[in-house]
């Protein structure tokens, strides 16, 4: 009898534990039962860990879509290989809009320069719904250093180190192009993401670093870091006093942007519904404040324009990398 009571207690405890564990698992009912989209909860894969800008943007859009379209859009983090693992999830999914993803341009335009042929993710395997926002890179140095422009770096008189947010990232490409095309003696030091690179720069462990604007702006504004250049086509609103690389005589334009994708062959009406929901989200004050907070420039253009941008950026980057003999796959 005693034994039985204990077993019952065990089952009860176990059930309670299992239930709480289940809190972490999302369930999806799919959206292919003929009704209007979305007919059930939608999973949005993000190819990065919680907390980074990719994750935050996905969560912000997911919240907006849930409000606009009435079903739950939940974010699933599937980080790894610069987003290639999340991309694979979407690529393999049923093209019914139940699994969608906001993806990064770098996976399609920059990563191919750094990885083997068979690891390349192609944009042709997805339908692009529309653009979301642009995230700019900025070249920064610790303000203890005397440099205030790229020209100053040329006269530094020593081999300069630059921290990057990893191999095959836009930050690495922007910095590598700056130093190579500016003919400045340099050494790349890859870090595991933006935060460690920022820490190293604040401690003056590396001379310069290329970071995303949102990661660096706090410390630029409080004077701990000096911004030397941005890599956008024109000056960005968040750092109006910082000249572009082009202004400083270097033909370097590198930026990250994000856009909504669905599996190849998703019905047009589903994509239209998602795009309408996104456009309604873009209009909200909440979303605009979010962009402001994270130093993101809106890039709310239709899907075919995004595809064109990706194609031209990829070709442009490939020819620049070839011209200056840069091997993104080998930082050392």
């Amino acid at each position, binding site marked *: 009898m005693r034994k039985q009571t204990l077993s019952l207690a065990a089952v009860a405890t176990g059930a309670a534990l299992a239930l709480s564990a289940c809190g972490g698992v999302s369930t999806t009912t799919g959206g292919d039962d003929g009704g209007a989209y979305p007919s059930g909860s939608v999973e949005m894969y993000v190819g990065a860990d919680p907390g980074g800008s990719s994750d935050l943007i996905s969560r912000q859009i997911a919240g907006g879509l849930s409000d606009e379209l009435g079903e739950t859009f939940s974010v699933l983090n599937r980080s790894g290989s610069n987003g290639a*693992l999340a991309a694979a999830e979407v690529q393999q999914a049923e093209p019914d809009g139940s699994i969608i993803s906001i993806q990064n341009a770098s996976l399609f335009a920059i990563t191919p320069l750094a990885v083997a042929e068979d690891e390349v993710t192609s944009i042709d395997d997805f339908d692009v719904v529309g653009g979301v926002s642009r995230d700019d890179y900025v070249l920064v140095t610790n303000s203890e250093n005397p440099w205030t422009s790229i020209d100053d770096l040329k006269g530094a008189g020593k081999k300069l180190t630059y921290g990057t947010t990893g191999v095959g990232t836009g930050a690495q490409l922007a910095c590598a192009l700056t130093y190579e095309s500016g003919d400045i003696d340099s050494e790349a030091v890859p870090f595991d993401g933006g935060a460690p690179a920022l820490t190293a720069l604040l401690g003056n462990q590396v001379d310069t670093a290329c970071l995303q604007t949102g990661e660096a702006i706090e410390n630029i504004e409080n004077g701990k870091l000096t911004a030397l250049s941005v890599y956008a086509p024109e000056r960005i609103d968040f750092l109006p006093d910082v000249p572009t690389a082009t202004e400083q005589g270097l033909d370097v334009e590198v930026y990250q942007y994000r856009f909504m994708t669905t599996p190849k062959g998703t019905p047009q009406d589903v994509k239209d519904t998602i795009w309408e929901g996104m456009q309604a989200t873009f209009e909200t004050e909440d979303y605009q404040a979010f962009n402001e907070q994270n130093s993101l420039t809106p890039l709310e253009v239709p899907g075919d324009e995004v595809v064109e941008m990706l194609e031209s950026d990829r070709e442009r980057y490939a020819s620049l990398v070839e011209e200056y003999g840069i091997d993104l796959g080998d930082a050392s």
Partner: protein
Amino acid sequence: MDAFLDGFSVVTQPGNLLYCLIGVLIGMLIGVLPGLGPAATMAILLPIVVTVDPVAAVIMLAGIYYGAQYGGTITSVLLRLPGEASSVVTVFDGFALAKQGKAGTALGIAAIGSFVGATVSIVALSLTAPIVAGWALDFGPAEYAALALLGVLLIATIGSGHPVKALIAASVGLLLATVGRDSFNNSQRFTFDSLQLADGLDFVVVAMGLFGVGEILYNLEERHGKVHVPAAVANVWPSRTELRQAAPAIGRGSALGFFLGVLPGGGAVMASLAAYATEKRVSKTPERFGRGAIEGVAAPETANNAAATSSFIPLLTLGIPANASMGMLFAALLVLGITPGPQLLEERPDLFWGVVNSMYIGNLLLLVLSLPLVGIFVRILRVRPAILAPITALITILGVYTINNSVFDIFVMIVFGVLGYLMKKVGFEPGPMVLAFVLGALLENNVRRALLIFEGDPTGFVTRPISGTILALFVLAAVLPIVQAVRRRRTATPHPNTQREDSLR
């Protein structure tokens, strides 16, 4: 000072107190559940907390984090499943105590140590946050490399098993750390062309396999049909002697934990590890460690709570998250429209001091709650393995899936589970392997980073003051046991040179 006191008036608002309580309760619960860590929990709750007032939301999320440090102990002691990586070393003596029927004592001393460690750390945080943050920035790649090297050495001295076997396990751990795409030249290492392995093996998955699944399998075979630990849990209040025994360990653990927690990257893990190794070193009876030494529970549990608290310093003063959980808190702050960074203290003193001071209250709540609740958790022990094993296996599998939403991870965990089971059968401890695995990646990447910065000149490691000091400690830690062994042999067989040996030392 005014802002500090205002912080208390922020915390004691009924709503904030309630969120503090909810936070620490959730934290303790998920700490008990192997696999569901504070980072994952925060990720799940993030969509909900954004609807709450920012200060209350951050107080609650912080509560989840330090509450989990209390909860993690419980599974370490009772089930030999570290709920958190920072509770790994607690397993050695905590589980040994549980087997002797002293699970209650172990949990009681851990709760008291945790409380003391956290409190010391909060006081120190309040006083030194701005100063310490500046110091932490002097840690560059060279310093991290030196620290990791010291850590690898310390690994060989922990663990209850044979030192040579510990070294072998640690070496395998270092090798496992090389799996994945090389983060400097992108070449594939042991990935078998699989994208799933391109980013290497996930530490949490490996640890859950080796410790969790391995232990479940081993227990099923060893004690099939028998009760896990038959003894009822006696008084959770430790005796006066036990308290006296644990007090110095708690003191040292608090200080060590505070300092190591400030360093970005793996602070709490390294703190618990270093605290355990320190206790073993200073102990007059090191052979008790791994067989139920009370200091072996007190020191790491004190240190990991102290480190968990002090890891808020780089986040709140510099906007740099020191670990995955702080990363989630960073994300939550951004979602709430607050940029963590140097301006936080000036712009939102209510938030800064509200959160810091909520930790005093939260830890008090945890101390009050965890001692009586231990009795409830302990009942899990009386469950037969045949019932417990499938339940824990199920929770572990669910938990490992939720980390990366990856089915592949489930298989990786099972493979390491079988490996952990086989290791145990032939007398290898999985602990050193897991810890070397973590430090391996840190060591390799930072050595290479440092060499890039030094333009290939390795003397930079010893000429930089902090890394030089750490390396000197490393040499000391490596040479001291040998010197001691020699001395012991000399004293055993009287020798005319004993006098000189002493003066040399």
